[in-house]
């Protein structure tokens, strides 16, 4: 292929405008090793023509010059492999001390950046299923569908045991011989602190909820507020941070999910739709406000969104339509 044509073709390719046949041409052209340099030459020209941002080259250069001055040429070491492998497949045993230093710096930097990912691993539940886990110190956790719990990767160590919850879960915390606190973080500035007890925690976009079955917990809220809960107490806070503590709450609405059931007691249909979304990650919309304000009661078993919607449609005589990325509930038109 002639070079000017090739250049245009490559520019088109970098722009993502080539057809699959043209791609094939480029591939064949590249099979000739001599063309590889030309490829990168055009890539460089293309980059000059399509800048993304302006790096601070001057200060970077100063750093680099300091580097140059600091390390005057030492004995040259032949590179072990061809160029590409330099950057990726590091031959670990052949590393020069500078490579080791660079690797160490990189490792430390990445440890710092990815601290949370390294120190914690996530326990997850798939949509439509609960998942049970036993943590290393004996605490039992049942995760509701569509939930994630971050737990320390390398065990809890000494001191407090900390985990992070997104979604809903029931905890049966074991008491340790050293009275170590167990802390569940449910969003920024919300902490549940316990020694040994059973409770259900909920942390999703629309708010937070803690229901205490046994024992005693301390809740830490934003702005340094604290709250002690007794068995049977229910703590609910909404998106805005306003919260409410109920003394004697009925446990059923908060624990029904463990048996993959929904418990409704005079619950608005709009709330039901919200729960389906949280449980199964399925968007349900009710455009008709009259319908959205109808109420429903009872306990329903459902392992997937369709189960519950089926029941609802029969029970309330509503129409269910699958739209592109959501499900719409509506009142059927009387013929």
């Amino acid at each position, binding site marked *: 292929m002639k070079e000017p044509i090739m*250049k245009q073709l490559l520019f088109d390719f970098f722009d993502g405008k080539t057809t699959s046949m043209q791609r094939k041409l480029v591939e064949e052209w590249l099979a000739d090793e001599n063309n590889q*340099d030309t490829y990168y030459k055009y890539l460089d020209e293309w980059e000059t023509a399509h800048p993304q*941002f302006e790096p601070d080259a001057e200060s970077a250069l100063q750093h680099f010059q300091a580097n140059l001055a600091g390390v005057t040429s030492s004995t040259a070491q032949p590179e072990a492999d061809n160029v590409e492998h330099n950057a990726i497949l590091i031959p670990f045993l052949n590393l020069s001390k500078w490579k080791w230093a660079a690797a160490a710096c990189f490792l430390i930097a990445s440890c710092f950046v990815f601290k949370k990912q390294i120190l914690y691993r996530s326990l997850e539940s798939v949509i439509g299923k609960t998942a049970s886990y036993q943590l290393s110190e004996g605490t039992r956790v049942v995760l509701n569908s569509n939930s994630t719990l971050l737990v320390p990767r390398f065990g809890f160590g000494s001191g407090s045991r900390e985990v992070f919850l997104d979604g809903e879960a029931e905890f049966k915390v074991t008491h340790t011989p050293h009275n170590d606190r167990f802390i569940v973080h449910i969003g920024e500035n919300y902490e549940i602190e316990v020694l040994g007890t059973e409770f259900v925690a909920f942390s999703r976009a629309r708010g937070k909820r803690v229901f205490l079955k046994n024992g005693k917990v301390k809740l830490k809220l934003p702005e340094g507020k604290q709250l002690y809960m007794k068995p049977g107490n229910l703590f609910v806070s909404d998106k805005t941070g306003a919260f409410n503590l109920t003394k004697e709450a009925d446990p059923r609405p908060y624990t029904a999910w463990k048996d993959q059931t929904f418990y409704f007691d005079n619950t608005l249909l709009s709330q039901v739709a919200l729960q389906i979304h949280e449980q199964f990650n399925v968007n349900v919309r009710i455009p008709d406000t009259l319908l959205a304000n109808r109420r429903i009661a009872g306990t329903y078993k459902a392992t997937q969104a369709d189960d519950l919607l089926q029941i609802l449609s029969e029970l309330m005589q509503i129409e269910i339509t699958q739209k592109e990325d959501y499900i719409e509930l509506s009142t059927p038109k009387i013929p």
Partner: protein
Amino acid sequence: MSTFSYRNPHEDLPVPAQEKLLDDTLVTDDEFLLRKEFGTNPEKGCELLFRRYYVNLCNHAVRFVHSKEVAEDIVSEIFTVFWQNQTFLHVTTSYRAYLYKSVRHRAYNYLKFQMKFSHSPEDQTKCSDSLNPDEALQFTELHQKIEHIIRELPPQCRRAYILKRVEGKKYHEIAEELKISSKAVEALVSRALIRLRKELSSHWTLLLLLFLY
């Protein structure tokens, strides 16, 4: 326009002579001067190389990593290693090709790490033309794919992602700018990352093949 064929006598189509000559001279020229400089004064050579390519390499890296800081770090590190290991003595290709390849590999490694790539069996979608995947093309297609995924994100999600990753802003700053809670910003950014991870996973399988041998 004159027929210019002594170089490729078997070609029968006219080639613009002027342009061809110019291009060829350029290739040899800039590399030739640099090579000469490296021969007499490697330190000066490194500096010239840095001045010439630093900005473009950063621009290239940022297409993969979507973070200005990370891009600059990657490129600076490549130059440092290039000097410290005296790689310039052993480069058989042009310096430019070496530098671009290094940027691509480092950016790829960063991305792989950052995306917590896991090799799950359902991701193994095989492409018919992947038997002998061409690295130079694959990398370009990878950053195009990334760009495409980001462009397809819902607007709010994309804004949050760009502000967080590319601009490197804090969650609460983005929250103020977008007038939503910082928790919501976190959720938007993580949704963008999850989408990226999901949609890239088939690409990883292809790219992984490259690095197995």
